[in-house]
């Protein structure tokens, strides 16, 4: 939607430098950042964590913590006023009226103790001098506009009564109600499921065209950029490394960091044609015989009552079953609450099933006694989503990696030492990191640690629960690479749990799609991703933002949650099963 480019910029930032702390502890978060925002355009500020992308825009609105952060230099001209030097009172006048903001965390960004209506109207009353009645009218209008039903009820509700997506819609309604000149959206969809994200992005695009608002979109997700942005500012370590129209940035990036970033971004469809994940070693171990067989797995979580368990509870898994062969990767995809993590834990018997069968390497996992189970755990290890939290902060890296071997009495003394060092090298860490503690490693290194830890007992199966979703894309790429390499050279089987279709496409031999505790579609990656049979799978795929500005995604298929087939699986093609 490239609109009126003739008129001058509505906001022009020059030489913005922001730092945190003072004296020795002072570190620069944003350095000499300059950019223009044209009327009606969407400018994406892209970067990985710590690139200073959020800080720069917070600084514009004077929302940085006053005592710790300081704007050292720069100007930000908006309607002939320099936001950075504007007295507080005047800046406040613009905030929430001419320039508004929406944040990443819809769950926590609304005041829990105030009704939605109140929160929607207070800014209008404050800035537009509206009466409560007019403000309410406007608020209802906006709620309807952002696609919420039962508007009057919503007005009376409290945030906790709304879902994440709904709250983000409320946030947007709040931001747009004043018909602002600029909307700053800070990672507006990062916390949302992919389908919801797609809806929100559509909504933003739609509102922008209605109101002609200029949007500053802060994100790390190249897909989102490609879909939304007119122009892009790429930031790295506080500096702007490149700026340009979205097309140019994607087609021929100048800066090598931009290039690196783009290369690292997993693109859905990149491996659409390949039958198996790409080989990263000379002789990949071929997919072997069945290693894991599960069927009829059921699990219901009960909410703990004040003294007794409450009745009812939520079904996390219903009649889930699948097979996984040696040296094979089965990806389980789904949105939050789909039960994919539960499934992974059930296989490792980290939680007790209500019913169902889990066979690993020919042994019934649910049949094990305590001792037997621990023995069995040699066969199957796990890699967790949060690489920091999953490493005991009080145990040194070396001992962490050694622990499984110690537990299973595989090695001791000098031999143990050697094994650990070898493992460190194996996952691409220096052996002299052994004595360090987890907090002394970077995110990526930590995940390598957990991998080394998992590998230490030469397991046959590794359950990887969103192993890279907490990492920046560039790091993610390296970790995925490592996992592929390990699988192919060691013949590991991965149960790969993820919400990211692109990553799944890169890693998986076979894919299972879960929704509300059930597998709705399962089959060879190619079949499921390229020729999805279940409506939900299709919606999921359609929602994935494509990091390619030329390939704009078609309108979202409307899925009616009620009518989706959620029954038993039936084969539609050779080992491609779909819920009926």
């Amino acid at each position, binding site marked *: 939607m490239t609109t009126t480019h003739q008129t001058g910029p509505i906001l022009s930032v020059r030489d913005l430098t922001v730092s945190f702390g003072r004296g020795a502890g002072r570190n620069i978060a944003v350095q000499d950042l300059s950019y223009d925002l044209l009327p009606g355009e969407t400018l994406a500020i892209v970067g990985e964590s710590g690139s200073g992308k959020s800080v720069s825009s917070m600084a514009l609105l004077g929302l940085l913590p006053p005592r710790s952060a300081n704007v050292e230099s720069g100007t930000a001209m908006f309607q002939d006023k320099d936001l950075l030097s504007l007295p507080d009172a005047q800046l406040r006048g613009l905030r929430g009226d001419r320039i508004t903001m929406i944040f990443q965390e819809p769950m926590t960004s609304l005041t829990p103790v105030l009704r939605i209506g109140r929160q929607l109207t207070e800014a209008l009353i404050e800035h537009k001098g509206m009466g409560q009645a007019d403000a309410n009218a406007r608020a209802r209008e906006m709620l309807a506009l952002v696609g919420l039903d039962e508007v009057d009820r919503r007005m009376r509700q409290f945030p906790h009564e709304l879902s994440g997506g709904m709250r983000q819609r409320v946030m947007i309604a709040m931001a747009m109600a004043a018909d602002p000149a600029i909307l700053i959206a800070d990672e507006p969809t990062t916390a949302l499921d992919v389908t919801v994200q797609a809806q929100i992005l559509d909504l933003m695009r739609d509102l922008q065209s209605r109101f002609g608002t200029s949007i500053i979109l802060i994100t790390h997700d190249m897909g989102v950029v490609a879909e939304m942005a007119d122009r892009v500012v790429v930031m790295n370590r506080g500096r702007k490394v490149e700026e340009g129209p979205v097309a140019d940035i994607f087609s021929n990036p100048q800066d090598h960091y931009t290039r690196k970033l783009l290369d690292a971004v997993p693109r859905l469809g990149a491996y659409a044609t390949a039958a198996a994940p790409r080989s990263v070693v000379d002789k990949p171990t071929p997919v072997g015989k069945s290693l894991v067989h599960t069927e009829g797995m059921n699990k219901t979580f009960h909410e703990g009552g004040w*003294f007794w368990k409450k009745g009812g509870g939520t079904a996390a898994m219903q009649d889930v079953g699948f097979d996984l062969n040696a040296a094979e990767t089965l990806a389980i995809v789904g949105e939050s609450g789909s039960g994919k993590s539960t499934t992974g834990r059930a296989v490792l018997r*980290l939680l007790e099933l209500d019913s169902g069968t889990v066979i690993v390497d020919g042994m019934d996992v649910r049949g094990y006694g305590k001792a037997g189970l621990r023995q069995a*755990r040699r066969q199957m290890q*796990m890699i967790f989503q949060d690489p920091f939290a*999953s490493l005991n*902060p009080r145990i040194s890296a070396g001992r962490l990696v050694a622990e*499984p071997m110690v537990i*299973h009495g595989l090695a001791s003394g000098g031999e143990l030492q050697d094994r650990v060092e070898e493992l460190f090298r194996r996952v691409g860490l220096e052996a002299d990191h052994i004595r360090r503690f987890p907090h002394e490693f970077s995110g990526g290194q930590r995940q390598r640690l*957990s991998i080394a830890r998992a590998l230490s007992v030469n397991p046959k199966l590794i359950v990887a629960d969103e192993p890279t979703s907490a990492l920046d894309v560039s790091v993610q790429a390296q970790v995925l690479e490592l996992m592929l390499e390990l699988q192919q050279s060691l013949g590991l089987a991965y149960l790969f749990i993820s919400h990211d279709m692109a990553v799944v496409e890169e890693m998986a031999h076979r894919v299972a799609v879960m929704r509300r505790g059930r597998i709705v579609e399962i089959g060879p990656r190619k079949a499921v991703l390229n020729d999805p049979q279940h409506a939900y799978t299709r919606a999921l795929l359609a929602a994935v933002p494509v990091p390619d500005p030329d390939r704009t995604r078609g309108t979202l298929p409307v899925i009616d949650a009620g009518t989706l087939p959620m029954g038993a699986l039936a084969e539609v093609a050779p080992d491609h099963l779909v819920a009926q």
Partner: protein
Amino acid sequence: MVHGTTAELADDLATNGSARSRGFWRALLASPSGMIGLAIVGLLVFSALAAPLLAPFDPLRMAAGPRLDPPSAAHWMGTDDFGRDVLSRIIYGARLTLQIGVIAVGISLTCGLLLGLVAGYSSGWTERILMRLVDVLFSFTEIVIALACLAIFGVGLTNAMIAIGIASIPFYARVTHSVVLVEKGKPYFEAAIAAGAGHGRLIFLHLLPNVIPTLIVIGTLGVSTAVLAAAGLSFLGLGAQPPQPEWGFMLSSSRDLISRAPWMMIFPGLAIAITVLGFNLLGDGVREALDPRQRQR
């Protein structure tokens, strides 16, 4: 007083695992509260150990000076109604105070830790019943439980220490329990299970090290509570018995004489207040040192 802040303490400390002994002392000494606290506690310990050298008189010796003699060169803090030297009594009192702190906290810490660990680790009915019980006892407040205990095994300083120790078990149990829950909820715990770790390893290698810091903090703060409580009981006549130079007891015997000999009331009270302050500050200091998040608070 650390009461009521159980939960707060629990996550403040538990959420921050990254406390290592290296840098801990540096951090402790860096925080003003930590340093002052350390200084006061150090002074207390010193005067307890060196009492015979420091005290100008035998704390029990009557007629060491004239009765009810106001502070003077000879008796810096005056004398009491038996002509005993108040300063000497206060210096020796430090011994009792320290004893109280150590014994009382020792009891409540060990029992509380055990209860909390057991309850937290062995979720299910054991946990529910244990914690329900602990909560109830907790709501009785220390003093009432202590009173009950003293009603059972009779008055006296030793009994008072034990009573206080018992009385604050619920608090320690609660803190331990909530920390254990926080730690248990963290992926690394599940990771350890996934790695095949057994109960022993889970409890002693994974949980305990992450629980200890919290307990160090509330233990330090707990000493102040214990000292306060013991002084209170002695003040009520339920604790120390004559001629023990226990500060609270000294306070209570000063009451008939406030108008005639205010120094008998002022100095022991000051001693208690400063000691308690010392341990509170030290506690806060340790807490900050263990939890960087606290520092910018």
